[in-house]
């Protein structure tokens, strides 16, 4: 099994109240500068202690994740991180210019010496407001963009693209990706449609903001669809994103987490107005598994112990966390854990180090 360290670049300072998009009436440039410095520090450490990937992701208009263009942070990571792969999980391709995405990915693969992992996601529902794209078109745009990006990476001669959502007269991107035929592609796959498309396209699948049973069901669907398409996903083809905190002991881990929760009672919201939420749902954004939306929301309402049980948090001593990971591996078959630091400051650094030196060696064998 492999481990990735995700840098969400969450703004840690106070913010004005309200939903999304979040106003910047309370905002500090210094805190934002420090946030990016911390992301680089965490990623460097992860690289040193043996993490396989470092991860960045795209979100817009809020303090929850300050990497609206994760390509830029990834560019810095290509220089700061010497060994680990640089994973973008991902670029929200339906709302972007796919040719530009292909170019940026190819630059990152070249800058990193072939260490790019190219995640392509639909993004959270609110992202469709960001660049004023109809959420009804989300899935169809996603499918077209992914195929266009792959074509831009692999076609050696200029070609035009007469698509449903994008038209180009002549494309010939420079530089080309180093990895052949192209960098590994991952997409998010909680819904049945996503699993089916990923299987047809032979790309990897990532799970985030879900539960163990929901992800296990989706992973089974993906594997069965891949079998129909004539191939077998490897363990590495499934990524599971989860917050983690490895403490010195089980007791210390819980104490650290509770102390941090008391010190900072803030929480972020991607909540839109109810009318906008309903409009996005009505547009068919969630696809055939609309009901999953409610199930996931309900699943995140529980307490700490319940969240660990549902596979939504890794918490405890190295030994305890190893057991929690064994269960995730057994139920989903995920080959890569994308880990979100559960705490900040020195505690986060200590947790990353414990994971790399004490947990990672024990879970390496899980795929063999």
């Amino acid at each position: 099994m492999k481990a990735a360290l995700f840098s969400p670049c969450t703004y840690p300072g106070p913010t004005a109240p309200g939903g999304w998009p979040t106003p910047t009436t309370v905002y500090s440039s210094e805190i934002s500068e420090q946030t990016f410095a911390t992301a680089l520090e965490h990623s460097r450490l992860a690289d040193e202690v043996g993490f396989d990937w470092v991860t960045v992701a795209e979100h817009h208009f809020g303090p929850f994740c300050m990497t609206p263009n994760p390509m830029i942070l990834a560019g810095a990571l290509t220089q700061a991180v010497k060994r680990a792969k640089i994973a973008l999980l991902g670029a929200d391709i339906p709302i972007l210019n796919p040719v530009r995405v292909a170019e940026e990915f190819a630059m990152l693969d070249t800058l990193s010496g072939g260490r790019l992992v190219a995640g392509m996601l639909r993004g959270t529902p609110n992202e469709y407001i960001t660049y004023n794209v109809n959420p009804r078109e989300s899935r169809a745009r996603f499918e077209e963009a992914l195929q266009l990006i792959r074509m831009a990476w692999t076609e050696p001669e200029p070609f035009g693209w007469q698509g449903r959502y994008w038209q180009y007269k002549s494309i010939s991107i420079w530089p080309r990706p180093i990895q052949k035929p192209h960098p590994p592609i991952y997409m998010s796959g909680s819904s049945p449609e996503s699993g089916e498309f990923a299987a047809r396209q032979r790309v990897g699948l990532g799970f985030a903001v879900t539960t163990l049973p929901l992800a296990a069901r989706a992973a089974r669907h993906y594997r069965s669809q891949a079998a129909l398409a004539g191939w077998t996903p490897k363990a590495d083809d499934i990524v599971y994103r989860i917050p983690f905190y490895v403490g010195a002991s089980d007791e210390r881990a819980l104490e650290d987490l509770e102390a941090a929760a008391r010190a900072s009672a803030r929480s972020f919201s991607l909540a839109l107005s109810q009318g906008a939420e309903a409009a996005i749902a009505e547009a068919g954004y969630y696809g055939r598994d609309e009901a999953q939306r409610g199930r996931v929301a309900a699943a995140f309402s529980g307490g700490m112990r319940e969240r660990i049980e549902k596979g939504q948090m890794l918490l405890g001593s190295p030994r305890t966390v190893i057991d929690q990971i064994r269960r995730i591996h057994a139920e989903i078959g995920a080959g890569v854990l994308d880990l979100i630091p559960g705490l900040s400051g020195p505690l986060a650094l200590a947790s990353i180090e414990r994971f790399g030196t004490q947990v990672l060696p024990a879970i390496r064998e899980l795929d063999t």
Partner: protein
Amino acid sequence: MSGGEDSSAARVLEGPLVVLPAAAPIAALAERIALRSSVDGLERFDLLAQPPAIDAALRLALERAAAVHALVLVAPLPPSDPALIERLSALKVPTLALYGTRDSQAPPTTSRGWRALMPGCHVVFVYDAGHDLAADQPQAFADIVLDFVRDPAAFLVNRRDGSVRYV
């Protein structure tokens, strides 16, 4: 493009084409196509061919090069006749080769062979179309063909008005 009774002949567009409204489906394009087996008497024309008429269209284009305004090849495979292949590099007619991204008979990778034979040829992939591009994606097909034949020399340049219109 509909019907197949004269599929062995090149299809001839009497040019220049009138620009169709953006919403016109392939049926409207088909109305503009004079299905002909001969170009006798035409001084200037656009030529649109799909298999199995590709080789015939290429021979015609070579023979009447000065009269051909634009040549559109739909899902073409490179000719098997070595003599025809040899002559293609001299063909100066503006050419567009279209391929469907789902076509298994003439997949997009086939275009790589064409480029070597006809260096000036534009290649465009029609997304989510199989071998019968016009039937699978009529609007996309009509749009790209009309865009090309309207002014082949300026094909690469987007001349659409991008401003927001309030009606």
